[in-house]
């Protein structure tokens, strides 16, 4: 694995964390959305990360060297929604209840911090690899 592969590896990490931040933003934006039908409410979305194992990168005694991470899919949380009595709400059902989305704001905020940290670390890895490459290119000068 050469230093150039680090750009791919850390880049895939940046991409995955961006998707995670995107779902967090979507969840937070819809945290207060309501619906009279409990099956039509907004459900919190979370990405599922999976490491990419690339056979072509098998440079270590035939072992697969992982080359990064990808988002295998986005799953919806199945936490039951909370029911609230709001007969004045135009979306309320015939009994006067609305269902709020099952987004947990605290969970989303911590998720956001975690994604932020991971993103920064990947950027740092790219910067380090770039510095080392530039120094290697300038070898002998």
């Amino acid at each position, binding site marked *: *694995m050469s230093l150039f592969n680090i750009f791919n590896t850390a880049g895939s990490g940046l991409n995955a964390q961006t998707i995670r931040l995107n779902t967090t933003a979507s969840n937070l934006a819809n945290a207060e959305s309501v619906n009279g039908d409990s099956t039509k409410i907004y459900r919190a979305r979370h990405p599922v990360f999976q490491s990419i194992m690339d056979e072509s990168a098998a440079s*270590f*005694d035939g072992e697969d060297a992982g080359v990064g991470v990808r988002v295998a899919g986005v799953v919806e949380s199945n936490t039951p929604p909370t029911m609230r009595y709001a007969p004045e709400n135009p979306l309320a059902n015939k009994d006067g209840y609305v269902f709020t989305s099952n987004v947990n704001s605290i969970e989303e905020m911590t998720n956001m911090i975690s994604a932020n940290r991971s993103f920064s670390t990947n950027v740092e*890895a790219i910067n380090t690899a770039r510095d080392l490459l530039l120094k290697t290119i300038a070898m002998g000068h």
Partner: protein
Amino acid sequence: MFDNVFGIHEQALLLHGQRLGVLATNIANADTPNYKARDIDFSEVLSRSNDAPLALNVTQGAHISLSDGSTPAADLKYRNPYQASLDGNTVEMPVEQAAFAENNVRYQASLGFINTQIAELTLAINGQ
């Protein structure tokens, strides 16, 4: 004459480059469930590089000759986590960051040694 002018630093530079890639993979997969952090046992690989590699005779055109053993193959080993996590991920970010920083310094040290060697050779060639 110039076969072994850089000594161990040439191989050390390559190994440090490989290790940087492995650590970057760990960092990228810090949030991947069931991902197991890996690392290169540096001293073991480097000590193996001093042994003379076993030669393989090429008697037919279809035979594939082995590389000359100048870059020893690195064994990837799994890291033992200090604290097991619930999702099966064994990447511990502070450990990875520390290893990354240490490897960065070692890479630059090897590079520095090689640069010094080149400067000395240039001085010897120019003779002034």
